């Protein structure tokens, strides 16, 4: 983990408020794992004050790092408008990461909206090791505008299953319904490969994914998001309720957690499966 200055090489708008920030000078991120993140801050004066935690999308050996974000709050909107050549301070790589793809496992990567980056990077790492066929992306959003980097995923040779709530692309409905369909498919296929779930996205989606995993007795990893000030386990702001100890920290214990380690809230309504 290092604290350094990087330069924005390119800021590519993807529509729907999504953008990919390409940074140069990030040699110290080259060995990052999928699921790790960085704290990023531009020359913004005093408002917003704190750096922003942003998931890594991709890193390349020549010091290039790509970040995917959506302009939602003050910090991400400033990043959205950042110009090539601008300096940003970077602290990272931070946190843990997803377990590596293996020949013996099949990983269902479940991404909701802006939760795509760590799972894209997971698929990219699998592809580099010739294991892209050991994972598949189940990717959902409100509409087609929320689904980005489709060409890049095709380029990896990644099997992708899409879901949109308005039905504008892929299966109509929530990504969790698509996940259940893919689990059914794999379980019915009878293949001797351990099925794992790795998910990142809105909290409600993650809790639903965790409940589905539990119902099917599947190993499930969740990449969580939380307000944090430091990213290195000092401010203790990013506590998430856990079973033992009672709190874990998104930045230093996560952001990737085994779903069975954290407290998953009970479903507010009927489960996605019974609602079908």
């Amino acid at each position: 983990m290092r604290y350094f200055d990087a330069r924005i090489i390119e800021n590519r708008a993807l529509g729907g408020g999504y953008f990919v920030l390409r940074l140069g000078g990030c040699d110290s991120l080259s060995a990052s794992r999928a699921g790790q993140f960085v704290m990023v801050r531009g020359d913004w004066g005093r408002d917003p004050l704190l750096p922003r935690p942003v998931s890594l999308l991709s890193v390349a050996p020549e010091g290039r790092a790509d970040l995917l974000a959506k302009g939602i709050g003050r910090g991400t909107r400033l990043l959205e408008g950042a110009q090539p050549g601008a300096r940003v301070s970077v602290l990272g790589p931070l946190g843990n990461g997803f377990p590596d793809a293996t020949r013996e496992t099949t990983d269902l990567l479940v991404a909701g909206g802006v939760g795509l980056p760590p799972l894209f990077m997971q698929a990219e790492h699998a592809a580099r090791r010739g294991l892209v066929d050991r994972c598949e992306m189940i990717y959902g959003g409100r509409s087609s505008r929320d689904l980005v980097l489709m060409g890049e995923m095709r380029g990896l040779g990644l099997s992708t299953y899409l879901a949109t709530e308005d039905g504008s692309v892929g299966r109509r409905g929530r990504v969790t319904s698509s996940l259940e369909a893919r689990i059914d498919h794999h379980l019915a296929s009878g293949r001797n490969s351990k099925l794992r779930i790795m998910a990142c996205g809105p909290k409600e989606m993650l809790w639903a994914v965790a409940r589905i995993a539990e119902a099917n007795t599947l190993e499930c990893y969740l990449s969580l998001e939380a307000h944090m000030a430091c990213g290195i386990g000092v401010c203790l702001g990013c506590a998430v309720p856990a079973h033992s100890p009672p709190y874990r920290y998104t930045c230093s214990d996560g952001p990737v957690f085994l779903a069975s380690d954290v407290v998953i809230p009970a479903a507010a309504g009927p489960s996605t499966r019974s609602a079908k």
Partner: protein
Amino acid sequence: MSLSGLLSQGGLPHLATRCGGIDFKNPVLTASGTFGYGREFEGLIALPALGGLVTKGISPKARLGNPAPRIYETAAGMLNSIGLENVGVEGFATGKLPYLRTCGTKVLVNFFGTTFDEYVSCGEELGKLDGIDGLEMNVSCPNIKAGGIEFGREARVLGELVRACRGVISKPLWVKLTPNTSDIVALARACAESGADAVSVINTITGMAIDPFTRKPRLATIFGGLSGPAIKPIALRMVYQIHRAGLGIPICGIGGIQSGLDAVEFLLAGASVVQVGTQNFIDPASAERIVREIEEVCRQQSVSDVNELVGALSPHA
């Protein structure tokens, strides 16, 4: 500029200082709750370059923190309600202190209790440990209903507590004051008269934030402590009020320091040393930079000894 060039201009400014019974190589410390137990910053900052560090607040037994959400960012500041989570005296002595003994800077241990007796026993136990240069009592955390704020807000109670702790602690004893008071000078006076070696001014200011869409408070505990550059003018005012009162107790200035110039403002208001807090989250190497910037300010203003700046505020003509 080269060292020889500097020396030909009259030499490097003298940054060493003494505050509250402790000699520091420079007047920049890091504040409790923003620097962990020091080791978290290894590789990000050269700890020997700092005047000192103040650990996270330690209580007699390990404590869990408050429910989430615990922090929220506000205009030029942040609210926190961490809940004084810490490893406890034993966890600190066995797990954290061995590293701190070798870290190359002065170590103050912040401590607290939830009862009068807990304060005294915690301070006494910590005071016996080798490798600690001084203790800083947290009497001002706004998050704990049973302790903290009640002790720190009332001068008489504060004085009794400081006197009791003083009786069992031979190491330098500092008291970190709450700004949530109408009379900061009365609190500082109570500390001075009860044997404290210095006062740290200020802790966070109680505040709150609301989500207008969900109509919920932004923090699980509703109230939290405001820190960051938003509170600097209040901190400066309180440091200056205490200095102007001439109580004879040294002051450690805290509140929104982001740069060497910010630190110099606190020195001019009457602080002998300063602590960098929330800025450690924004730039983990900032305390080291602030030391260099103070040195630069001294050079620019032909100040040969940083102690010349302490309380050197010039009134308007």
